[in-house]
């Protein structure tokens, strides 16, 4: 008789499988895991009894590299963590080092940073929406989303020459001033984009198949979300009204009006609604900011050689995926002694095992999509 014992699930050296149970590996090469994520599923028929995430396939040792580069040299590396939201990563890193130095970026730089970061949030959410919808079987939204995302990437390209790993900001401010026609282009995009979100919503929000596939799937209660450390739209979808842009404002966010959208049930549908509303709010922030970019310098007073005083700092921002934090320890030299990155995707992914238990295999795809993970950031 075949041995049905399989090792590898947490808490048990060997797991004895029931008569109808099988173990399936989803990934690391699977289109809906959005990268090299491997999920080991223990199934009873099509229901998930137990699961385990296996990660690390994309581990590059970013935190180790940081200890061997100067503060400025490490800047481009952070873009390669959450590579669909490189601008947000850069903002968090630059602000953390500025805090460590006791320096501040000038107002003009802060406003431009805010605009670019909000555009990045929209583009990151668009990529999430397109891929999440295609995972569940809605093909059309992807084409619509990539069309608008392209507009944003073109703005980035014109601003700094790169579309994805932009390295848009520098410690102390900006390297480049805005190009001629920047305001008009962003404004034209934003005025148009409001109607585009309506279009996406027409495709999905009241679509019967979409509702059937997302309502009640992957429920995370508010208490669980806090216990699991989930942040960003995952936390807000569970009804916790918390956004670092409001709680501890950074860049120029305290100057603008915007709402924090929240969900009620903490299911996949609510997280969808939250992200859709967030795109509208980001658009609103951009429209306010673009009207009034203050004149002045774009670079603050930081030296060419950065030697932050001995000590440590933790600074975090609201990245598209959640709280992105940098904990930097300085020993007074030009290279950081330790850089710890608090990755939102990594910690949100931790909730996966809890969320998929009892669901069908097809729902795993929906739940991975709704967590909006980027493996470059999970594995660092």
């Amino acid at each position, binding site marked *: 008789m075949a041995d049905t014992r399989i090792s590898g699930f*947490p*808490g048990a050296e060997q797991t004895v499988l029931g008569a109808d149970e099988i173990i399936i590996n989803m990934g690391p090469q699977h289109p809906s895991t959005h990268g090299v994520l491997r999920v080991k599923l223990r199934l009873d028929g099509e229901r998930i009894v137990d699961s385990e995430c296996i*990660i*690390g396939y994309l*581990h590059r*040792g970013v*935190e*180790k*590299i940081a*200890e*061997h580069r100067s503060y400025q040299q490490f800047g481009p590396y952070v873009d390669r963590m959450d590579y669909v939201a490189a601008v947000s990563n850069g903002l968090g890193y630059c602000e953390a080092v500025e*805090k*460590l130095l*006791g320096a501040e970026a000038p107002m003009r730089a802060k406003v431009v940073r805010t605009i670019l970061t909000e555009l990045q949030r929209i583009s990151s959410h668009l990529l999430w929406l397109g891929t999440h919808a295609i995972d569940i079987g809605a093909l059309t939204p992807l084409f619509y989303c990539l069309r608008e995302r392209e507009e944003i990437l073109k703005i980035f390209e014109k601003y700094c020459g790169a579309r994805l790993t932009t390295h848009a900001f520098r410690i102390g401010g900006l390297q480049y001033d805005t190009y001629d026609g920047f305001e008009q282009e962003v404004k034209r995009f934003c005025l148009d984009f409001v109607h585009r979100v309506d279009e996406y919503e027409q495709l999905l929000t009241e679509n019967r198949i979409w509702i059937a596939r997302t309502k009640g799937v992957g429920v995370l209660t508010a208490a669980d979300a*806090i*216990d*699991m*450390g989930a942040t960003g739209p995952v936390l807000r979808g569970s009804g*916790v009204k*918390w956004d670092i842009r409001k*709680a*501890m404002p950074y860049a120029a966010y305290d100057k603008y009006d915007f709402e924090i959208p929240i969900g009620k049930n903490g299911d996949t549908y609510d997280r969808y609604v939250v992200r859709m509303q967030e795109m509208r709010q980001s658009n609103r922030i951009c429209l306010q900011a673009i009207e009034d970019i203050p004149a002045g310098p774009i670079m603050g007073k930081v030296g060419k050689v950065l030697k932050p005083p001995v*000590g*440590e*700092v*933790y600074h*975090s921002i609201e990245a598209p995926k959640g*709280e992105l*934090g940098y*904990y930097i*320890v300085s020993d007074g030299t030009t290279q950081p*002694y*330790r850089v*710890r990155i*608090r990755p939102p995707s*990594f*910690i949100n992914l*931790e909730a996966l095992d809890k969320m998929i238990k009892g669901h069908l295999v097809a729902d795993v795809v929906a739940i991975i999509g709704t967590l909006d993970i980027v493996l470059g950031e999970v*594995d*660092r």
Partner: protein
Amino acid sequence: MALDNDLVKRFKARFGDKIREAWTDRKQAILVVDRESLSEIAVYCRDDESFDYLVDLTAVDWPKREKRFDVVLNLYSFKKNERLRLKAYAGEGESCPSVTGVWSTANWLEREAYDMFGIVFEGHPGLKRILLPDEWQGHPLRKDYDILTQDTAWVRENLGIESGQ
């Protein structure tokens, strides 16, 4: 700068000399606590001081110090909109109490700290490597692990190449 506000006073009244030091750095509060009582203090933080969200758990290596590791916990309170950093010192081979029973987030974070620094968290439900392969030798974020170091035997055996560099 030494810190002596109401929060620290409450901690000291409750835990006495288990609160070793308290200071602020860049206006951020840091408390150094006794390693053995870490989980007890964590429960107090969560339940009585409403630091209900464990933002991050990590470590820093200071090889020249007698107790080489800082175990660092970043906490946040939704109610007070306030952050607090707890630190505990652990020497080579000394284990640290796990806080997985207090915050579920700590599960993966402690596995990562174990993976990268080799700090053992006592009471963790399944402490094993998370980012590196299970059989990997060495803990890369230790300061004595050079940036070019790798587990050559593992690389040769599993990847079939001479070196990953």
